């Protein structure tokens, strides 16, 4: 469970990434965040595991405040949150197995992880994770020998090996072709359904959002302008989230119309 309490994020250059966000994401949900480029989707996601610091408010993850945590407790909260990136962020020169095992470092002492002394259970876990995303036969390949879709599945395996309870995915399929996109989204879907892992996914494709999400959050200029089941996300709502065909955040009117007016 993830709770945002009056969360704001202002970047050092003055850009407002998030503006007073209050939202609660329940366990097991498949939440898709949509919005224009620059609306604040990545900022929203990255504040959850504190890759970005919030400037105001508090974020609670599984009952613990990550925004207040320091040192070991912070690392332990992060350990429970897997993250999947648009450009996979694997260590390209390392093997697939090593990349997946790197998801386990939070569970052991630094000395053990540096000497690669992962217990057998960890290796089993890594192989299971690879098997789950159909990448087992590539375990000993170097990460840069894989296609984009395969790399993304390895990064999903890393999050699984991590035994994350929440997975954050920032445009996980933005650089993939339609077929691979489907495989990766299906992987995320199965993981969500079968393992009950909460998914928070930024997507650019409304079609995908409608297909996979249980809940959609529309972000516009750092604020949540829609939050509800996908079935309620009608074309009018989407038009509003996307600012009616205009393509820049800057072109938004100074005063936003309340959503209700637009829908009616």
């Amino acid at each position, binding site marked *: 469970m993830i709770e945002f309490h009056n969360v704001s994020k202002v970047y050092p250059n003055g850009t407002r990434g998030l503006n007073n966000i209050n939202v609660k994401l329940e366990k097991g949900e498949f939440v898709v965040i949509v919005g224009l480029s620059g609306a604040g989707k990545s900022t929203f996601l990255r504040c959850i*595991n504190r*890759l970005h610091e919030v400037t105001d408010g508090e974020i609670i993850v599984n009952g613990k405040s990550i925004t207040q945590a320091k040192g070991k407790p912070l*690392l*332990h*909260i*992060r*350990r*429970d*949150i*897997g*993250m999947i*990136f648009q*450009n*996979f*962020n*694997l*260590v*390209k*020169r*390392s093997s697939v197995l090593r990349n997946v095992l*790197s*998801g386990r*470092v*939070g569970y052991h002492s*630094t000395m053990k*992880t*540096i000497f690669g002394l992962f217990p057998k259970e960890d290796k089993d876990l890594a192989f299971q994770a690879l098997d789950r995303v159909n990448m087992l036969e590539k375990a000993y390949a170097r990460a840069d020998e894989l296609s984009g879709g395969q790399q993304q599945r390895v*990064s999903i395996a*890393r999050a699984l090996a*991590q035994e994350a309870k929440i997975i*954050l995915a920032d445009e996980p399929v933005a650089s993939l072709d339609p077929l691979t996109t489907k495989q990766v989204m299906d992987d995320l879907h199965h993981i969500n359904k079968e393992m009950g892992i909460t998914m928070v996914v930024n997507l650019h494709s409304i079609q995908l959002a409608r297909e996979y999400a249980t809940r959609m959050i529309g972000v516009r200029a750092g604020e949540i302008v829609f939050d509800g089941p996908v079935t309620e996300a009608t074309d009018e709502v989407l038009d509003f989230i996307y600012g009616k065909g205009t393509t820049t955040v800057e072109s938004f009117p100074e005063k936003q119309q309340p959503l209700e007016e637009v829908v009616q």
Partner: protein
Amino acid sequence: MSQTKLKTDLQHLKKPSRSKTYFTLLLFVVLMIVSAISVDFSFQKLFEGFPNMFNLVDKMSPPNWSYFSYITEPMLETIRMAVVGATFGSILSIPFAILSARNVTKSKWVLLPTRFLMNINRAFPDLLMAALLVAVFGLGTTAGIIALSLFSLGIVSKLTYESIEAIDPGPLEAMTAVGANKLEIIYYGVVPQIMPQYLSYCIYVFEINIRFAAILGLVGAGGIGQFYDTNLSLFNYPNVSAMIIYTLAVVLVIDFISGRLRRSLI
């Protein structure tokens, strides 16, 4: 977007001025001229010196080939000094490189002092450093090895930290997200990305250490340089030419091998 709107927008988007580039170029030319004047550079002297060079070559030939066996031991000593110095320097440069890479070390209080130390080390004239070390540790290879270590440290740490700053930040982010601590982030996110370059720098520094080690003897810090010194002061030019040929051959062979090694790394 209308034409006029575009125009006003373009006025805001100021083109970066080129004057900085021109100014730098001008400064460079001025500095070059001033330096040439202040060191008393003259083409006349350069031409006058040429005949002397032929004269020297004449005195040097034929080389005293039998001197080769005599200087093999000091040559080996020179190579050993270069190896040990490169090894110490390269190992020592790891913490320096990490602590001075902006993308890994966020604290200015660590970053700036580390860089300052590195800059002092590199700014210090190498041969002067060796001479000072001889004054402290006495004549011999110890001073030479320390000088070579500091020299290697300066080069490898700088090259390595620049490589670290150029790595893909993605894996660092991924490791942070996984809940790794600083050391684990470095070990899993940084090390695999810079390993080939780092090893190549270590070999490269050994390569240039050979050249430096060969002249260290001039200040009494061990190696073959002492023999240059003695022979030059005794005007024993055939010995000098034999040594030059020997040194050249060794340097070329080592360059060749290390070049091969480095290419296979990247």
